[in-house]
C-alpha cells in the first residue's frame, strides 16, 4: 500500500505534467504550419520537420517542461507530512523509513518513464494528421535519455525535499543546484566529460545525433546513460540515509 500512498500524494502533479507534455507535443505538431516559419527564420539549424520537432520537443521547451515536472514530482515525503501534521500517522505505519523513501523514489522513476513515453508515440501519430512523417524509430531512442535524465532531476529535488523543511525552499534549492550544475558542465575543464544533463537528454552529447541532420548516427550514449543513472541512485541513497537518521 505504500505505492498507493505515494501515488495519491503525487498523482495531481503527475497527471498535470502528463497533460502539459501531451499538450505541448500536440501544439507544436498540429500548429506546425504556423510556428515552423518563425522558428526556421530564427534558427539556422531548423531546415525540415524533424529538426523542427527536435528543436521544440526532444531538445527544446517540452524537454524543459519534463525536467520541471521531475523537479516537482521529487517534492513531498516526510517533511511535507510534518508540515501538514500527518507525520505521526505515516511513521506509525508498520514499515521502515527506508521502505517509505524507496517506494516513493521507485514510483517517481516509473512516473518519469511514463512521461518520457508520451512524445515519441504522440508525435508519430499526430504528425500523420498534418501530413508530415516522424518515424517512431526516431523518437524511441529518446525514451531512455529522457527517463534517466529526468530521474537525475527528480532525484535532486527528492534529496532537497528530504533536507529542506520548506517545500518551496526545497524546490528553489533544487532548481538553483540544477542551474549551477548545468553552468558547471559548460566550464572548459568539465566540458570534455559531457555532464550537461539537458544536452544528454536532447541527444546532443557527441556522436549521438548528427549535428547537421539531427538524425541518429547509430551510436548510443551508454556510458553517460549509466553514469547519470548512478548519480540519480546515489542521490536517492543519500536521501534514504538522511531520512533514516533524521530527528522528525
Amino acid at each position, binding site marked *: 500500500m505504500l505505492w498507493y500512498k505515494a501515488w495519491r500524494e503525487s498523482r495531481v502533479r503527475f497527471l498535470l505534467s502528463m497533460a502539459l507534455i501531451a*499538450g505541448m507535443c500536440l501544439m507544436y505538431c498540429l500548429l506546425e504550419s504556423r510556428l515552423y516559419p518563425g522558428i526556421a527564420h530564427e534558427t539556422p539549424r531548423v531546415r525540415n520537420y524533424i529538426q523542427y520537432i527536435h528543436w521544440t520537443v526532444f531538445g527544446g521547451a517540452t524537454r524543459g517542461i519534463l525536467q520541471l515536472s521531475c523537479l516537482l514530482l521529487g517534492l513531498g515525503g516526510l517533511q511535507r507530512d510534518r508540515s501538514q501534521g500527518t507525520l505521526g500517522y505515516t511513521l506509525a505505519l508498520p514499515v521502515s523509513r527506508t521502505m517509505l523513501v524507496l517506494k516513493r523514489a521507485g514510483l517517481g522513476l516509473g512516473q518519469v518513464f511514463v512521461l518520457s513515453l508520451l512524445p515519441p508515440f504522440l508525435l508519430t501519430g499526430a504528425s500523420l494528421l498534418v501530413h508530415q512523417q516522424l518515424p517512431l524509430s526516431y523518437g524511441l531512442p529518446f525514451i531512455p535519455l529522457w527517463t534517466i535524465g529526468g530521474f537525475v532531476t527528480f532525484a535532486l529535488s527528492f534529496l532537497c525535499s528530504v533536507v529542506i523543511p520548506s517545500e518551496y525552499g526545497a524546490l*528553489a534549492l533544487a532548481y538553483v543546484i540544477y542551474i549551477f550544475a548545468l553552468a558547471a558542465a559548460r566550464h572548459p575543464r568539465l566540458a570534455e566529460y559531457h555532464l550537461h544533463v539537458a544536452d544528454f537528454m536532447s541527444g546532443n552529447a557527441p556522436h549521438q545525433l548528427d549535428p547537421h541532420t539531427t538524425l541518429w548516427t547509430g551510436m548510443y550514449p551508454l556510458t553517460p546513460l549509466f553514469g547519470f543513472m548512478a548519480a540519480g541512485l546515489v542521490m536517492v541513497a543519500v536521501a534514504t540515509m538522511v531520512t533514516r537518521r533524521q530527528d522528525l
Partner: protein
Amino acid sequence: MLWYKAWRETRIVTLGGVAAMAIACGMIVWFEHAMRDNAEVPMSYVAYIWKSVYNSIGRDIFLFLCVILGGGGLLQERAQGTAGFTLSLPASRGQIVFWRAVMGYAGVVALALTPAVVLPLASPYRNEIYPVSQALGFSLLWAGCGAVFYGFTFLLAHVLEGEYTAILAAIPSLMFYGVLQGLPWMERLPMLNIFHVVNGEDMPYFNEGLHLLTGPLPWLPLGAMLVLASGFVFAAGRRMRLRDF
C-alpha cells in the same frame, strides 16, 4: 504583524534566492577568463556578463524564483491545515493577501538588485569594471518584468488548489506566451515581449553590439507591468474575499 507573517513564509526562498543569485554572479565573474577564452566568438567582459547573467543563468534563476515566490497564499495554507488560524486573525482577507503580495514582491526586488550589488563589487577582483548604472538599469527591468511573473503566479495560487499546481500551471502558461511572441502581429509590438524587455534583446534602449543599455529605459511599459501585476493581486484578493473556507 501581517507583514512579519508573510516574511516568515517567504524568507527561505528570498534569502536563499539572494544568496544563490550572489553566488551565481560571483562565479560568473570569477570564471570569466576561462569562459571567454573558450568562447566560440571573442567577446568583451560586458558582453560576457550580459550573456551569462542577464541572458542566461541569472535571468533563469530570477524568473523561476519569481514564480516560486508567487506560489504561496491562503489556498496553500488550507492544504496545510493552517488557514483557520490565519483567517481568525483580526484582519481582513484583503489585508492578508495584500501583505503577502507586498512581502513576496519585496523578495522579487531583492533578487533583482542582487546582481547590481555583486557585479560592480566583484569585477575589480578580476581587473574588470562593470558599470553600476548598467547593473541598476537591468535591475529596474528585472523588477518591472518580475512583477508580472510574480503577480501572475500569485493569482494562479489563489485560484488553483493543490500544492505546486500554480507553479506547474504558471511556467507553461508563460512559455505559451513566449510561443505567441512568434506570431507576426505580436512581432509588431515588441514591448509586449516581456522576455525581451527583461534583458533588452531587440529593444531600442539596448545596443546589441556593445551589450549596453544606451537609450532611456521603457518607463511606460514598466509602469504598465506594475499596474498589470497590481491587477493580478487585486483579482487574487477579490477571489479570496468570496471564497468559502
